């Protein structure tokens, strides 16, 4: 049940895109999402798609992985397309059957919206494909720092995130171990209807919860004995550093963004 699971979609690599600073990548993603909402033509989408493909080529991402990200929105895309096809009116009638009618305008707007959704998802998945969860957390922490003035404990939140990410594989392993142990005692996790299966998870959940919270307790003790004092002035093992290439990349993207949105 738990085999072959990786957290996040991150594909390790050492391309230019992989090496970009996480903060810059988050900012770039936000800029490009905004651009997608400003583009108002299929040509614009075409150019954007070229940009996405360019990033994919530079970062040597397998096309399949990028397209995989589109699966969960299949349903949404279908709904959007059909809504527009049958409800948006204007232009010539393309197809008619009983009360159903597809008009030119509807088909085009539908395809346009679908294009926007597809590009949005492809572009945002580029971020998670080329940035490790830990770097992303660091990036989010830095970007949230200004909010500390309004009482948002960015440092603490990021610390909890980092611990959580660190312990996901550990707990996963633990869950698997407990499952094996319970199976050896005759537990059955896979058969029955959903309620029965949920109930059968109790022998897994109880030890898993107990050991997880025991770990939390020990961790707190260990941190305290090493004088953990909270988020401010905490140093870190790997500092995020802005390099010249990061700045160039940001400037480049801003130029592309301006060109795409005010073309």
């Amino acid at each position, binding site marked *: 049940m738990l085999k072959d699971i990786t957290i996040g979609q991150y594909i390790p690599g050492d391309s230019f895109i992989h090496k970009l600073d996480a903060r810059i990548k988050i900012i770039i993603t936000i800029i490009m999402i905004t651009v997608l909402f400003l583009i108002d033509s299929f040509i614009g989408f075409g150019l954007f798609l070229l940009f996405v493909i360019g990033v994919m080529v530079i970062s040597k991402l397998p096309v399949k992985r990028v397209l995989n*990200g589109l699966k969960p929105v299949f349903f949404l895309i279908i709904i959007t397309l059909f809504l527009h096809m049958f409800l948006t009116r204007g232009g010539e009638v393309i197809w008619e059957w009983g009360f159903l009618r597809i008009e030119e305008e*509807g088909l085009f707007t539908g395809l346009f919206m679908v294009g926007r959704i597809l590009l949005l998802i492809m572009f945002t998945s580029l971020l998670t494909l080329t940035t490790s969860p830990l770097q992303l957390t660091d990036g989010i922490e830095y970007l949230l720092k200004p909010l500390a003035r309004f009482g948002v404990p960015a440092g603490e939140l990021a610390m*909890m995130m980092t611990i959580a990410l660190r312990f996901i594989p550990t707990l996963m392993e633990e869950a698997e171990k407990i499952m094996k142990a319970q199976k050896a005692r005759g537990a059955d996790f896979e058969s029955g209807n959903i309620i029965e299966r949920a109930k059968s998870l109790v022998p897994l959940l109880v030890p898993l919860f107990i050991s997880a919270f025991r770990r939390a307790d020990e961790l707190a003790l260990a941190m*305290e004995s090493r004088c953990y004092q909270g988020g401010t002035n905490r140093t870190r093992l790997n500092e995020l550093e802005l390099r010249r290439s990061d700045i160039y990349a940001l400037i480049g993207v801003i130029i592309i963004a301006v060109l795409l949105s005010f073309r």
Partner: protein
Amino acid sequence: MQNEKLRIMTEIAMAVALSTVLSFLRLWRMPMGGSVNLEMLPILFVAFRHGGPAGIVTGLLHGTVQLIAGAYVVHPAQFLLDYPIAYGLLGIAGFFPIFAKDKTIKMKNFLFAFIIGGFGRLLSHVLAGVIFFAEFAPEGQNPWVYSLIYNLSHIIPALIIVGIVIVILFRQSGKVLIYNN
């Protein structure tokens, strides 16, 4: 005397890790693409153990981990509402006391708190849907209608099934789960 705040923080972190692990244990795959799993359990657990604010933080962080783990973003406001805020609102269940004086769980109170939290999460998904359909659906149509239809077919069944499962689990072993230390 141990630093209570630090212990709550590490428990929240561990609960987030636990939620993520449980989110991989699929109980049932919905035909439309959603999945039924027990990821809400650790969030509720922290909410009932340490109160509403801790529950909300657990939810916010779990949502963010889900986001990092590869979520779909179709609108700048939608990703906040569908992930961190949705799970965060689940944490409000912790504002309602569920324990009787003898430290047993009052099932009625638990159900009430859980429904409020679940409703919070639902509201967030519905709002995200409204934003999505306001942007992507034909103009002149009411986005609320579409959002409700979409969520009714997609998220509400999943929430109800998970709700039933969690209530059964809590009735069976809620006390063991919450008072383990």
